[in-house]
């Protein structure tokens, strides 16, 4: 993919800097919708959430945050623990329908496309099925073919920020490897965000390398090191899921490319924030998992309570660099370093006493 003709001059970086700037400050709480009395309208209601895998710390911690938020409001929230097998998701869907819950949440990759009969059974029982933290804001229509609704994330913006940062760091002459994993909808959304930013840079291009998740451990390092040696002008590596970066940094080291090639990534996974602290990864865009948990509960309560739905749950991104990565702790911890503006924000929004 190459930057298109008619884009801004390579040395004019102001556009990209302007995109990045808001995300370098501690996130502020933005209410996704009007305030409502959550405790009153959620009285006697229940939600079951099926995460993509309970062995995945990302989803496991969002579940904990959702559980804690539900407890604050005072309704029943149950997590269907599983090891990522679709047969376990089916079991969870069936159990939720049998228990006549008020909403089923499919969290962060539990794929409604492989649960069609179960979703239909839930719909027949008048239980809405919501795919949360699964797709980009612009992909809602696609998800709604398979589920009743979604709680999207602005993945396209995350992808755009990765490109913006790399373009600024390479002074408008970016030749980047773009490491992706096709399958999840979020990948398409992030790639579209990257492509959109390339149109603003006349001397920027990326080479896409796709790695299936089970192959990350064995394929990323040799492929990236070969790519770095094959093209000595590569000066950046964009990693759309930051857990890939542990296999990228050895390739950079083995090829002796530390000085010419930097890495940025998305997700804010604690060990990657550790790599940011060490300088092996230059930038990581993070999401506060506790904040995500509150935002998902907020959206889903609005649906259960029959309130107007929100199209964007306003989950903020925050850019970590070597300068602020220490705020995440040593060693870095989940949900640390983002500030706590959301705690009071949601308490007020839900009119909690």
């Amino acid at each position, binding site marked *: 993919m190459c930057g298109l003709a008619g884009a801004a001059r390579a040395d004019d970086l102001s556009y990209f800097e302007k995109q990045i700037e808001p995300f370098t400050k501690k996130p502020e709480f933005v209410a996704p919708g009007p305030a409502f009395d959550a405790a009153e309208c959620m009285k006697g209601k229940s939600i079951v959430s099926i995460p993509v895998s309970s062995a995945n*710390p990302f989803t496991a911690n969002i579940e904990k945050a959702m559980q804690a938020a539900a407890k604050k409001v005072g309704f029943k929230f149950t997590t269907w623990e599983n090891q990522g097998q679709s047969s376990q998701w089916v079991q969870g869907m069936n159990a939720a329908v049998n228990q006549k819950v008020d909403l089923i949440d499919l969290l962060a990759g539990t794929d409604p496309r492989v649960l069609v009969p179960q979703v239909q059974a839930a719909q027949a029982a008048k239980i809405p099925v919501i795919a949360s933290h699964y797709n980009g804001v612009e992909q809602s229509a696609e998800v709604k073919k398979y589920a009743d609704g979604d709680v999207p994330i602005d993945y396209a913006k995350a992808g755009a920020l990765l490109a913006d940062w790399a373009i600024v760091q390479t002074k408008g002459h970016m030749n980047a490897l773009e490491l992706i994993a096709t399958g999840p909808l979020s990948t398409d959304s992030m790639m579209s965000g990257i492509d959109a930013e390339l149109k603003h840079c006349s001397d920027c291009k990326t080479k896409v390398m796709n790695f299936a998740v089970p192959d*990350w*451990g*064995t394929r990323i390092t*040799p*492929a990236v090191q070969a790519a770095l040696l*094959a093209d000595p002008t590569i000066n950046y590596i964009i990693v759309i899921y930051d857990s890939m970066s542990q296999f990228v940094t050895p*390739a950079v080291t*083995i*090829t002796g490319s530390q000085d010419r090639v930097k890495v940025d990534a998305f997700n804010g996974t604690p060990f990657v924030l550790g790599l940011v602290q060490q300088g092996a990864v230059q930038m990581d865009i993070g999401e506060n998992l506790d904040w995500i948990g509150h935002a998902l509960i907020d959206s889903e309560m609005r649906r259960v309570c029959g309130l107007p739905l929100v199209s964007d749950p306003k989950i903020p991104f925050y850019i970590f660099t070597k300068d602020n990565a220490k705020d995440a702790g040593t060693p870095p911890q989940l949900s640390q370093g983002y500030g706590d503006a959301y705690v009071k924000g949601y308490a007020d929004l839900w009119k909690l006493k």
Partner: protein
Amino acid sequence: MAQPASIEVPVKASGASRVFIKRAEQFGLIVVWLAMIAVFGYLQPATFLTWPNFSTIFGSQAVLVVVTLGLLIPLTANDFDLSIAFVMTLSSMTVAVLNVNYGIGIGWAIVAALALGLLVGLINGLLITVFRIHSLIVTLGTGTFLHGFTLWMSDSMTISGISSSLINAVIVDRLFGIPLEFYYAIGLAAIVWYLLDYTALGRRILFVGRGREVARLSGINTDRIRIACLVVSGLFGALAGVLYAGTQGAADPVSGTSYQLPAFAAAFLGSTSIVPGRFNPWGATVAVYFLVTGITGLVFLGFSSFIQEMFYGGALVVAVTLSQLVRGRQEQQF
């Protein structure tokens, strides 16, 4: 599993032809490897035929070489070790947890990881020989158990921040431009080669693998040999885990398990070369570098990753098929 015996090929050919066929089989993989290097070098002379490229190829596969070496010892004794990649993952996580989370010196963390590997190998060996359970079942069970254990001990998290002294000793420090881990792997291959080819124990392992009952009736303590092989396999799995932790400077509870199938592929591909019909360390080492050279060349030519997967699987099937054709299609009983 009866290993493919390296007996003379029953084909109608003259003595000179037979020698040629034997040599072609013995060095076929190396010749194809060199030919592949020549083709990629011809197509990409400025980047492929460079020392940085070859030093990178050599320096990046030590983990897979060590796992493969660990596998082929029990394979020689006719036992499968399906737990080796899980031992490797547990070992790397042990190093990370002890060193990063508990602040224990890297040397002691490595010792603990290696001890765990030995222990797992001993448990595998005892379960297989005492209870007479097939190695496939036992190691599948222990491997899965270890995977759960590793997830528990790491809280399903990746842990970074492993001591730089291990990272330096594995991929940062170099000799002739190649990271030191390459030399560790080659050193271990030499040890396994010496063990299997030049010691009485090595011949006994082979004997046990070829005919366990015959070996037992000949007075060989087959159980002890099999236990020893699985203990060594556990140790090699743990050593691979230490190298894996040093390569990444981090440990995660999942990715190491993906080494299982490539290691088996390399072991079987290696058994078609150098000492055809036998699992052998130099053949396995050549197989690993043959495969990574192919993948590197394909990346240089700009092919997508699905072509690399096809090369990986296709090379294994083609090499073993050709080997079988040359050897008169003897039945392989794994």
